[in-house]
């Protein structure tokens, strides 16, 4: 009886855990407009009012949303659009055109995309025809026909706005802004960008036509708010099926946020990057350690996640090298110290290595030169060293000038954790003069 009961609870738990992981993963990975916004109420209101006026009063506008990567620009816009679309009056009266600077890499493509999204394409079948010039004339004429009172307002959303600036003559931007400043079809142009110097990139006549509305998103929260965001992100929703589990989970999250180690982990993370995407990454890693036997997140989970988050990629590669390759890297390090970062070639490294073998090494086997060369080339392939650009491309392999892409600190840290490193190699690493 008791056995059956325990089995039942475990099955519920299994179901429960997978549900929890699904919900939270969705929250972390998708920019779902159901998620919560943090600390951008003012910007939210500004944008909402702006778009409302466009749709309801037919007022043309232009605005830029500026903020570093991961500060929630798209999220803000999606939230605003979602709320906007709930009103019937807006839903029936607004046309949206979404462009992305990474997809519409020139104005020609952008124009075709606009005509397509406005569904007034001059098409035969589904193929858009007409030259670039014709398309532009077509679109401009269409937009010119409309007026404030009778035409459907059009919302242009330009993601990666800074890339549009590099289009030839900024034709698209000029025309969009020009329409927004003349008595034609009401349009609102919203640009999203992470570049703070965006206004300086606009040509002066384009800039004059831009209304200079800038909405800044800055991640302007402190650590207390960050902790609260952390909790909000982990809390299960009240409508979650398994009520008792929800309670326990949320209680655990609360106690986590008060835990000293967790706070330290979060503090370090916060110091490094304020953007919420990196927090999501951290939580995602911690979430993956949750299993039926380990149903609640602990401080050590977060610690582990944080460690793998801030892992140094190049140092990680060093862990997997052979002792010979490590020796070569150490030789390069010494060369760097002696010649103050001047580039080196294989022959120099080989000589340095030979010095070590002859005077100091007890455990090292004296490899032949081709073998050492092979190890050297392996390092090249791993991009731990890199040939310097420009001159000496035609030099012999041994004399190609190289640079080490590792810092001394990285090498020493990597050696600390390198498994089974011979002691003489370690000693050699700390000082090139240790044989004296």
């Amino acid at each position: 009886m008791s056995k059956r009961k325990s089995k039942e609870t475990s099955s519920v738990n299994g179901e429960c855990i997978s549900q929890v992981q699904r919900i939270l993963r969705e929250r972390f990975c998708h920019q779902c407009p159901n998620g919560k916004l943090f600390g951008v109420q003012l910007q939210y209101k500004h944008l909402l009012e702006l778009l409302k006026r466009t749709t309801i009063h037919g007022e043309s506008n232009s605005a830029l949303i500026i903020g570093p990567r991961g500060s929630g620009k798209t999220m803000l816009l999606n939230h605003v659009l979602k709320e906007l679309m709930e009103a019937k009056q807006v839903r029936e009266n607004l046309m949206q055109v979404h462009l992305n600077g990474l997809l519409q890499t020139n104005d020609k493509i952008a124009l075709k995309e606009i005509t397509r999204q406005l569904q007034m394409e001059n098409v035969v079948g589904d193929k858009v025809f007409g030259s670039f010039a014709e398309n532009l004339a077509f679109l401009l004429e269409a937009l010119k026909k409309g007026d404030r009172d009778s035409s459907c307002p059009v919302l242009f959303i330009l993601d990666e706005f800074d890339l549009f600036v590099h289009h030839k003559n900024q034709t698209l931007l000029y025309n969009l802004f020009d329409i927004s400043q003349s008595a034609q079809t009401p349009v609102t142009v919203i640009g999203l960008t992470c570049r703070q110097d965006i206004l300086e990139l606009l040509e002066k006549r384009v800039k004059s036509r831009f209304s200079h509305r800038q909405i800044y998103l800055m991640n302007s929260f402190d650590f207390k708010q960050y902790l609260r965001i952390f909790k909000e992100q982990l809390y299960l929703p009240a409508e979650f099926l398994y009520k008792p589990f929800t309670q326990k989970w949320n209680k655990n999250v609360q106690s986590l946020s008060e835990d000293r180690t967790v706070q330290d982990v979060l503090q370090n993370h916060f110091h490094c990057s304020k953007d919420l995407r990196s927090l999501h990454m951290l939580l995602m890693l911690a979430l993956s350690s949750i299993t039926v036997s380990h149903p609640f997140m602990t401080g050590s989970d977060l610690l582990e996640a944080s460690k793998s988050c801030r892992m140094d990629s190049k140092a990680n590669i060093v862990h997997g090298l052979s002792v010979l390759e490590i020796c070569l890297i150490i030789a390069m390090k010494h060369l760097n110290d002696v010649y103050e970062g001047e580039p080196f070639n294989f022959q120099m490294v080989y000589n340095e290595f030979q010095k070590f073998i002859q005077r100091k090494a007890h455990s090292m086997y004296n490899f032949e030169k081709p073998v050492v060369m092979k190890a050297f080339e392996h390092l090249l392939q791993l991009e731990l060293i890199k040939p310097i650009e420009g001159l000496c491309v035609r030099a012999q392999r041994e004399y190609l000038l190289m640079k080490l892409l590792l810092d001394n600190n990285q090498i020493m840290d990597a050696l600390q954790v390198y498994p089974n490193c011979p002691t003489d190699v370690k000693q050699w690493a700390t000082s090139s003069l240790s044989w004296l």
Partner: protein
Amino acid sequence: FLPLCVCFSLFPSVVGSQEKHAVVQWFSRITELPLNKRKLLRREVSPQEIFLDKAPGYGTDINVETIIKNVKVIPLAPEEVVPVRSKGKQIFFVKESWDGKCFKPLSPGLLSELKEAEKKKRNIQMEIESRHSASKSSLSKERHSQRVANGINTPGARKKLQLNSMYTAILYLIQKMVSNINTSNTMQNLLLVFEDFDFSLQPEPRTPKTPRNATPRIPIRNQATEKPANVLEEARLRLHVSTIPGSLPCREEEFQDIYNFVESKLIDGTGGCMYISGVPGTGKTATVHEVIRCLQQAAENDELPSFQFIEINGMKLTDPHQAYVQILQLLTGQKVTATHAAELLAKLFSTPGPKRKTTVLIVDELDLLWTRKQDVMYNLFDWPTQRQAKLIILAIANTMDLPERIMMNRVASRLGLTRMSFQPYTYKQLQQIISSRLNHIKAFEEDAIQLVSRKVAALSGDARRCLDICRRSTEICEFSSQKSASGLVSMAHVMKAIDEMFSSPYINSIRNASLHEQMFLKAIIAEFRRSGLEEATVQQIYHQHVALCRIEGLQIPTVSEIIAICSRLGACRFLLVESNNKYLHVRVRLNISQDDVMYALKQE
């Protein structure tokens, strides 16, 4: 281009002679009407619709022999729709009359008269065709222009009919009928058509083709726009740049100069160029449009010879050579390639047209028409110098010394020395612009308007900026919690709007950056100080960063994290980061001044 007429009476020209004459009323097809006037109709016109042509100056007395063919003309009341009848019969519909300036619906009296005539005289509608040796289009165009010019010269007298035997039968029929009419001695209404070519030659309508030249449009909105509900919204509406003000204050002088220039050229019937420069937002295009509007008004009141107005914008062209295509299309409606258009335009402007109207061409954003050979600019400014061209060009651009800077001598010389530059608005002018736009709506405090104008005048003198700031301040006023007692836009609101628009974002965003990002900036400055250079590699900065972290007792970030921080700052353009995969050896520069960084970091 195909003259149509209705015949009201037939009579022998001289009593007893064989020649019979008819008194007719002319009709026009849509293609005969000037391009720019067609828009007045505001609807699609089917090719079967014709207009009662009341323009004065046409001969109404024609030789019967020139009548070729009859067609059926059905008068329609204004509210009726032109039915679509595609096949076979040549039926025309008349709905509106045209008096050379505008369209009017048929007067009820005339309508009923025509209807009566149609009912009664169905049997005597005639079908007559005339043959011309010259090509259709050119001839008809010529004929049109001549008809406009020279009303006495009726088409009948001008056209020698080359009737062959095929038509004699018809003619015989007519003559017989005419004699009948004469014997019955009643006023007869005949609907007659002069035709250039046979309708049967036109292809039968097949499956509807995708309309290549269909005028595209944005869908109509479902609900009406809301009217402004309060003073602030009303003010916002009026302050929008797109609102066309009743008058343009502060540009009276420039307006007068341009007006006089164009007017004198129009009266003389010559051509010329004028170059207009000024920084963005000083009302160049607006003033020129205002001038054109006034001139058009004057032309309509017959104070000036009528002219054709076209406009191109360098920024709205994908390529300078597209200018030819656009000009030709606006002038004649033809759609050809750029090279062909250039040839056609050159021909058009170099051949004398006896009654050619003057063309006024606005070229906005002239500098965009620059090409290596400068052929577009050269042609543009060369055409007006030709006597026959009658072309007036108003070229607009931003820079005052554009002709000297980018134009070759031969282009600059053709542009001539008629220059005008628009000075940036002074604060008084900006103030006047705002108040004239507001037009006695009390939404702003006087001081607030003055503040905006002074600020903008000091910065750029750009009227657009000024209006944008005003608009934004009305929004701030509307949503601010502490409304000023009067409910008007006050100084505080305006200040806030100005701050929003002009304050540099750098300081604030540095202050909101994460601790290590700020530390990285500090490390950069430390490294710059150490090396005395304005550039450093990530490795060097990393060492400084580690040292700073040790002092502060912070966790030392790994190299991967440092690189991530560096690229984040690079994406925001606080830093200029070399884009290559040199990892630690990537060189970094500051994109902001060191003082700004120090200032931003010190405040904490």
